[in-house]
């Protein structure tokens, strides 16, 4: 055995070490590819946008109140698309936030454990349905239903697209908020009960404020999701860029515009082709800012509790 040791400790099996190095290199490469993807996204959006902004002034882009790049009388004001995007997003959040947060509080403070375990996965189903299916739902069920209440409602409108998008986002807010609320230390809840608070007072007086940063994060992520949502609005909200806050008329979001152009036959290198990258980079900036805001809040929040 002593003899064995000599050979053991020496550099035998040299190829094994090389193999380890190669594998580690490949794994590293796979991880670093994700940085390349981000770089590629930014490069693609920027390079085409730069060409776009060499032909269209950035001031017109940000201030012109009309977006008609596909018409003879061209206007390149992004505001109508941004307005359409924000309008549908606002409606979606107006639906999803109260319902999602109530569900989170209810499941955490009121519902029996088994009920919670059954309902949570059921709610998650809402998040797994393809968005094109939601679009169909908005167009063929929700809009006709709403037209009975609001007779002036157009066939394509921000309202029903927004509401349906809100329903889709409910599980996102409810489960992230629920995680945040259940992460609040038990002692806080017990302190509140100890002073004779009802469940409602404990929930909204103690738990929700204590979990507020986590809830804010969930809402920001939901906004980011709604801003980038495409198929629901493409199907149900219309394709008419219009600077309005009226939810009953057809509008167009940034994402819908990109789909609209993609469906047509716009030649590469034309100004029309580049408009979708200018629209894309606007969308990317919105979601990028929202996502990073949520990371920043999450980080601060974690430090607070550790």
């Amino acid at each position, binding site marked *: *055995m002593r003899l064995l*040791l000599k050979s*053991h*400790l020496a550099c035998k099996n040299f190829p094994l*070490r090389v193999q380890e190095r190669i594998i580690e290199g490949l794994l590293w490469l796979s991880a670093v590819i994700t940085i390349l993807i981000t770089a590629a996204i930014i490069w693609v959006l920027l390079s085409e946008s730069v060409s776009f902004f060499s032909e269209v002034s950035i001031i017109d882009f940000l201030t012109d109140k009309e977006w008609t790049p596909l018409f003879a009388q061209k206007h390149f004001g992004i505001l109508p698309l941004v307005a359409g995007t924000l309008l549908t997003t606002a409606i979606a959040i107006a639906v999803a936030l109260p319902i999602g947060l109530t569900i989170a509080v209810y499941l955490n403070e009121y519902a029996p454990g088994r009920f919670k375990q059954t309902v949570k996965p059921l709610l998650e189903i809402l998040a797994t349905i393809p968005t094109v299916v939601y679009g169909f739902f908005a167009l063929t069920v929700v809009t006709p239903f709403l037209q009975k209440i609001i007779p002036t409602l157009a066939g394509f409108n921000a309202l029903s697209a927004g509401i349906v998008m809100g329903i889709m986002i409910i599980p996102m807010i409810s489960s992230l908020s629920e995680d945040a609320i259940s992460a609040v230390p038990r002692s806080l809840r017990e302190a509140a009960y100890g002073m004779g608070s009802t469940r409602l007072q404990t929930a909204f007086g103690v738990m929700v404020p204590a979990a507020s940063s986590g809830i804010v994060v969930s809402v920001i992520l939901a906004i980011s999701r709604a801003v980038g949502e495409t198929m629901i609005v493409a199907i149900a909200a219309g394709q008419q860029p219009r600077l309005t806050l009226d939810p009953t008329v057809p509008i167009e979001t940034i994402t819908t515009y990109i789909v609209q152009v993609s469906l047509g036959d716009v030649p590469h290198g034309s100004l029309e082709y580049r408009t979708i990258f200018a629209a894309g980079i606007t969308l990317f900036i919105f979601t990028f800012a929202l996502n990073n805001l949520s990371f920043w809040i999450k980080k601060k929040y974690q430090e607070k509790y550790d």
Partner: protein
Amino acid sequence: MSKKPYKLEARNLNAFYGGFHALKDINIAMEEKAVTAFIGPSGCGKSTFLRTLNRMNDYIDGFRVEGDILLDGRDIYGKDVRVDELRKEVGMVFQKPNPFPKTIFENVVYGLKIQGIKDKKVLTEAAERSLRQTALWEEVKDKMDKSALALSGGQQQRLCIARALAISPSVILMDEPTSALDPISTAKIEELIYELKNDYTIVIVTHNMQQAGRVSDQTAFFYMGELVEYAKTKTMFTSPKHERTQNYITGRFG
């Protein structure tokens, strides 16, 4: 008494976790085919020291050692030493039994398989041999293809020892091997250690004074990262040189 040769030696060993000085100037020489026990209060550095003996701390961020650890006179932190080869020579058994979530057979032959040994006959023989060494053979021979997780805690720990023996190490490190076991299983493991020292050099970390007294030939007492006292177990338990050692082994602090 015949002097046995030294198997493991630490010279001026210092270890750090980032800025924390975990082991301070340790000098110790452990005899071949003997049991050396490390005792001391929690956080005294005994487990850290044990884990430097087969470089298990290598993967911890910010951990580094200064000084030498010699195995048969060769520095195990030397540049030409392969960690995996070192660990085939210096086996380890952990605090909690940690069988792989695989069959009993797969557990025992894992060390051989990763060395590239595929011959079924060689593997089967090695498995039987090491399971016999740990007195587990009779209990498991009919369920070699059952999950190791189905065994009792004591059996699992003996399986882990068999697993370490299967690759024929010369040194076995044991990190509180019985702390998660009941008294009967503990007794079996202690008995096993007593037998194994005929063929292996054993280093054991333990919290249990009686255990150190029962199984070890030499005992080292660690305190706050320092080696306070190192002597024959009998000597240390009957007439410790340092007051701290005496306080510890009589249970005045822990």
